């Protein structure tokens, strides 16, 4: 599509493109040079700040890998709990009965309107000795998982609802025509098709969940990947290098998941089995006005 915006470059345009590229390279190099020289001035490029990540396997075995495992554990558990819960809430919102639709809708809209960090902080306070007394060493973990579940089940409810609504009207009509009841239509016709349509959106929601676990590390003392920054830099005083490596790990993991999501999307769009309705990884918020899943922390 983008190529529609401009003509295939002729000789003049080619020269112009080269000039623009040149200007960009110079600007980019200047910024990089400024950043690197500032880092060099503060000794942040010194080899001993970076080599621990290559030479000292203990940095990985003691801090980074256990931290990554905690991140993945919390993210996976939150997804596993939030998924069925979100499905129930999403179907509830589609109910014909106002007394189901109303409260479920309020519940979903309420938890989508509240920052996930506040839900984590609330859960953490709730699990303290004064209320529920969850053991101190697992409290941050459960607080993070609870916060993520509360928020993401509401988001997933919207994904499920959008998935079902995206199916052609004819599917429901046909099911009715052969005498299926409402529950049967939902269980045998709509949900199976909606699941395939939702898959990419769900995978990219997992990326949002993984990123959000970092909040627990920063404010609740959850020993996840980002929180390892404090312990590593306490040993090597290499804050920038450590943050850089941690960011790289997040990017690799999340990029793998994102690629999986868009591959799924492409596959599903091509396959002839479904009804052609596929919720894109990026567009989960489009079909339902007011949804806001795209930019989770």
């Amino acid at each position, binding site marked *: 599509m983008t190529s529609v915006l401009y003509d295939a470059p002729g000789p003049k345009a080619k020269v112009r493109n080269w000039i623009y590229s040149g200007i960009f390279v110079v600007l980019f190099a200047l910024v990089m040079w400024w950043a690197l020289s500032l880092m060099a001035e503060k000794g942040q490029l010194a080899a001993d700040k970076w080599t621990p990540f290559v030479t000292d396997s203990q940095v990985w075995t003691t801090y980074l890998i256990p931290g990554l495992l905690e991140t993945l554990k919390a993210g996976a558990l939150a997804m596993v709990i939030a998924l069925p819960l979100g499905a129930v809430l999403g179907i509830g919102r589609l109910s014909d009965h106002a007394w189901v639709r109303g409260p479920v809708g309020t519940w979903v809209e309420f938890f989508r309107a509240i920052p996930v960090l506040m839900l984590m902080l609330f859960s953490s306070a709730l699990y303290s000795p004064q209320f529920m007394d969850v053991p101190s060493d697992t409290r941050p973990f459960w607080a993070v998982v*609870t916060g993520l579940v509360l928020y993401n089940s509401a988001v997933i409810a919207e994904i499920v609802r959008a998935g079902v609504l995206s199916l052609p009207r004819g599917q429901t009509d046909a099911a009715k025509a052969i005498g299926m009841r409402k529950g049967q239509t939902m269980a045998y016709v709509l949900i199976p098709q909606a699941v395939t349509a939702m898959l990419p959106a769900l995978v990219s929601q997992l990326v949002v969940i993984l990123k959000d676990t970092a909040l627990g590390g920063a404010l609740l003392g959850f020993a996840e990947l980002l929180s390892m920054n404090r312990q590593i830099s306490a040993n090597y005083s290499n804050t920038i290098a450590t943050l850089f490596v941690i960011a790289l790990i997040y990017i690799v993991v999340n990029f793998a998941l994102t690629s999986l999501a868009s591959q799924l999307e492409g596959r599903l769009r091509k396959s002839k089995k479904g009804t052609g309705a596929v919720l894109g990884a990026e567009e989960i918020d489009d079909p339902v006005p007011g949804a806001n899943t795209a930019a989770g922390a």
Partner: protein
Amino acid sequence: MKISKAAAAAAIAVALSLTATACGGSKQDAASDGGASGGAKDKIVVGIKYDQPGLGLKTPDGKYTGFDVDVATYVAKELGYQPDQIEFKQAVSAERENLIANGDVKFVVATYSINDKRKEKVDFAGPYFLAHQDLLVRADDSSITKAEDLNKKKLCSVTGSTSAQNVKTKLAPEADLLEQGGYSECLTGLENKAVDALTTDNSILAGYAAQEKNKGKFKLVGLSLSNENYGIGLKKGDKELQTKINAALKKMVEDGSWQKAVDKNLGPANFKSEPAPQITEGS
């Protein structure tokens, strides 16, 4: 719904912890909770800090170092446990009373100041160390010699720390206070001149300054803005353990191990070593 979900999470957590206790505590009666799990005198669980160099630090190779660790090891030895029978458990500041009350640990050696509020919940042995609130500055910075010099300077401490509030409200109201998640973040700023001073107990400051990578970079100003008597926290009413630990601490001071541990862990960085405090608890 919210409650039931939270309850479910809690139920799982409780179930997990029950299984853990069931595994460990089956051979022992409840009275020895935390003290030993498995066979008789097999293990002793001690609460320490994991992130305070010089006092209690978990190193990358999974070992533990610091003055509190040395004291804990010595006391455990006097109680009849070899170093390999000690199991260390992280005791972050806010959790120390809970760990003791729940019997998760036998005793806590974690920069634990003795005060009356805490004595309502736990008993102490010791004190084994007298610390003072002090300031840490860059080694080449001579502009800060007393707390009042902090006016118009940038001061760093950890979120919710009482020492920072002390300075801010009483001594140097014009100081610009930065609250960080941990002392190591403050140290990064101090090293790079983003902050001018870091305040908390001198033992903690000395521990950071004495680290290999920090040698020669920082110094203590040498103030005594407060007195903090570090004690060993233990279960309320356990007189027997209190007496035993007090005896162990006394012996540690007498045979010179105490002084050695201080010099080894807190020695560099202009730390004015004071003699061990008199034991006051439980007498």
